[in-house]
């Protein structure tokens, strides 16, 4: 489902929810306990998502892309890296690294459109498009700066 956005780790969004293997009673987790990572995870707060060793139980490995009917498209040329979209994204789907906005995690974005609403640039650096539309086409037809009504 990933549309090749920046920094996808090899486990991000690898499964649709519900598509996981339905193991028998003898193989389910004792006490319904779910570990979030494989191996020693003591340092994960200092690691970017793509550096972490997520367990298959971590929802990071699942995708909700199919929920989306419209999607945000990101225009790097206009963005001022204000990080409004990052702080208010309810789906941890704005990929920011070193104070720079890099793109959208399309495996986890549900297409709510909050990022577009909170984008302060003129024209906006994020706009909603039909899910089926190609990002390149969307960028090619990006609107021009709007004059503010006085």
């Amino acid at each position, binding site marked *: 489902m990933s549309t090749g956005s920046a920094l996808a780790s090899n486990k991000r969004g690898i499964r649709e929810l*519900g598509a996981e293997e339905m193991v028998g009673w003898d193989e389910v987790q004792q*006490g319904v306990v779910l*570990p979030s990572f494989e191996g020693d995870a003591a340092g994960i707060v200092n690691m970017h998502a793509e550096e972490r060793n997520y367990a298959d139980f971590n929802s990071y490995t699942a995708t909700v892309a199919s929920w989306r009917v419209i999607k945000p498209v990101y225009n790097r040329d206009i963005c001022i890296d204000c990080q409004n979209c990052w702080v208010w994204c309810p789906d941890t789907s704005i990929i920011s690294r070193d104070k720079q906005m890099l793109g959208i995690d399309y495996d986890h974005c549900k297409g709510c459109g909050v990022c577009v609403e909170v984008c302060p640039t003129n024209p906006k650096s994020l706009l909603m498009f039909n899910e089926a539309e190609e990002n390149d086409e969307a960028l090619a037809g990006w609107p021009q700066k709007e004059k503010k009504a006085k």
Partner: protein
Amino acid sequence: MAKEFELNEVEVWDGNYAASQALRQAQIDVVAAYPITPSTPIVEGYGAYVANGYVDGEFVMVESEHAAMSGCVGAAAAGGRVATATSSQGFALMSEVLYQASGMRLPIVLTVVNRALASPLNVRGDHSDMYMGRDSGWIQIDAFDAQEAYDLPLCAFRIGENHAVRLPVMVHQDGFTTSHKAQNVYPLKDAIAYKFVGDFVPVDEMLDFTRPVTHGAQTEEDWHYEHKAKQHKALMDSPAVIDEVFADFKELTGREYKRVESYMMEDAEVALVLLGSSVHTAVLAAKQLREEEGIKVGVVAPRCFRPFPYDLIRDALDKPSLKAVCCMDKSSPGGAMGALFNEVSAAAYSTNARPMMTNYIYGLGGRDFSVDEAKRIMKEQKAHADAGHITTNIQQFSGLRGPKLGFYEIRRS
């Protein structure tokens, strides 16, 4: 370090104090508790140990029994030894969390001082609360006297915390008849008791930050059934560990516990099956009847109420001499035969002896159960045996004022 508590070789303790000493010796990390009659003295006793430096762990006095068990679950998931105590209405209030504790596979020890359930309100001992817990997924072990109320919590930690089990354990004792009756108790020295219980070894602990874990996830129709089956399997497999712990305890103390206690069953023609402090009453009555009237009476007492010991009940009842068995339930049955009757009958059906099975409700709300009444019931079983069929209703009421009350009759002749 907690101070050592100087103990005599033999102490005169009631069941509550005996249980509180066992909890102290287990060096519990967190006790989250709320007082309720008749288990309050367990909590008070523990509080006194805390106040005087005999406990290193945390003692959290919460605002309800629901919170007591909730605190225990949170503490247990954080990877340490946890216990609490309750009775009756408190047990009922925490019942939601009892199911959650077992489903989350957290080895908490709950000392239950059995008491009737309202309404009408009653503080005396019967088994309504114990029976209420029977589908909760906990191991339930029953102490019949103060010595056992001391011994069995020590065993309970070992059983529940065993990694092959990982289930919470209730240790029951009867309200007042055991909890408030002073008896001779032979305690272990602190170091010996703790060595028997052993260090707690955590599983999936929330305080291991190298391995963050999610406890209490939701499961719907795709997963819930598998988890409940796995949990049931753990409970059904636990007797192997229970038997092993009881064997180790016998080696240490000479005191022997079995999942089913049998008395004089080798040649018994009739038998009583019952639980709790009444077992001693029944055994005394059986001995007297054997001497006085030559009636061959035996007594069977499930020490382990959950997992129900179908195997050992079957073995205890599978005697060619055995003709009639009466199961005695100290809990208002709520529109059915008593639970013990139903379960013991199921086990008896798989014997060759297939004795006649009857049910008495008795002792509700602390109504006394005397040796004479036990003898009367035993003689009634002998009458069934002699007649070759059950001569009364299947379910009757012992020690009840008013017109005779009975339900259900046999069709088999």
